[in-house]
């Protein structure tokens, strides 16, 4: 089976840094950013995008609908 390659975009200004996406991600793509957003939170950041498999778990768990998921074709 060919490996599916995914790509996610996180709206870091909207993110409140709750970490639910980080817990949900099965391949550990996401981690907290070192920088702050304008609300003062450490937002989620897609640090290891090469591991993304476009499963959409982060999108499903995000309570602030910050994440957009794509599949590379």
């Amino acid at each position, binding site marked *: 089976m060919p490996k599916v390659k*995914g*790509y996610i975009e996180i709206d870091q200004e*909207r993110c*409140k*840094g*709750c*970490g*639910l996406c980080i*817990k*949900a991600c099965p391949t550990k793509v996401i981690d907290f950013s070192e920088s702050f957003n304008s609300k003062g*939170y450490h937002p989620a950041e897609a640090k290891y995008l090469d591991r993304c498999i*476009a*499963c*959409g*778990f982060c*999108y*499903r*768990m*995000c*309570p*602030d*609908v910050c*994440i*957009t*998921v*794509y*599949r*590379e*074709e």
Partner: protein
Amino acid sequence: MKKLLYKMPESLSGKEFTYCPGCHHGIVHRLIAEVIDELGIREKTLVVAPIGCSVFAYQFFNMDGTIAAHGRAPAVATGMKRARPDLYVFTYQGDGDLAAIGTAEIMHAANRGEKVTTIFINNAIYGMTGGQMAPTTLLGMKTTTTPYGRDAQKDGYPMHMCEFLKEAKGVAYLARTKVTTPQDVEKTKKAIKKAFLAQVKGIGFGLVEVLSTCPTNWGMDPISAMKWLEENMIPEYPLGVFIDKVGDEK
């Protein structure tokens, strides 16, 4: 070439949610919006917001709506639906709204079999007012009004709305779910879809109770709050489908 898989549903207005970090309200808002998109009824749907944290729900959904007086959302929804039977009406209520001050309204709306849908968020505490005891608070749970834990002798027992409502003849769909894992989120989405289908098909009243966290008032971080929910709320409020007269999703 990138293929878009998941993005913000059209039925959400895009306005930033006013909820605390990690609050499950946002997940459930998104699920409702996705279901309405899938059913293609956004232009014909009305939202009734409650009093509570989700008081601004009518701003977050990209559709017409109003706020009802505390607990009276099912009564307002009844009026809307009876005046305009061609539209679809849903209420979005918390446990302080639905299970405390609004118990009469929800019981009678369900018993009359009003063709409206109710999404009930149960986080076992009053969120907006600062963490007071709700009827759904667990025994022994500490809140600002039960600082030594809820005592059954003094404060009564946790209220099980689904178990009460399953006796009502007018209910077409009744389920209790949670949204702590992606799999549960998908199950909740199916339940919400069926609750809406009960209305779209004209069968009767639909209600989905979603167990939710309140990290701020429980005094936990969002991840431990989800663990606390799994360990403490699930034994008290067992998940499941209580009534399903909708049948197949088609």
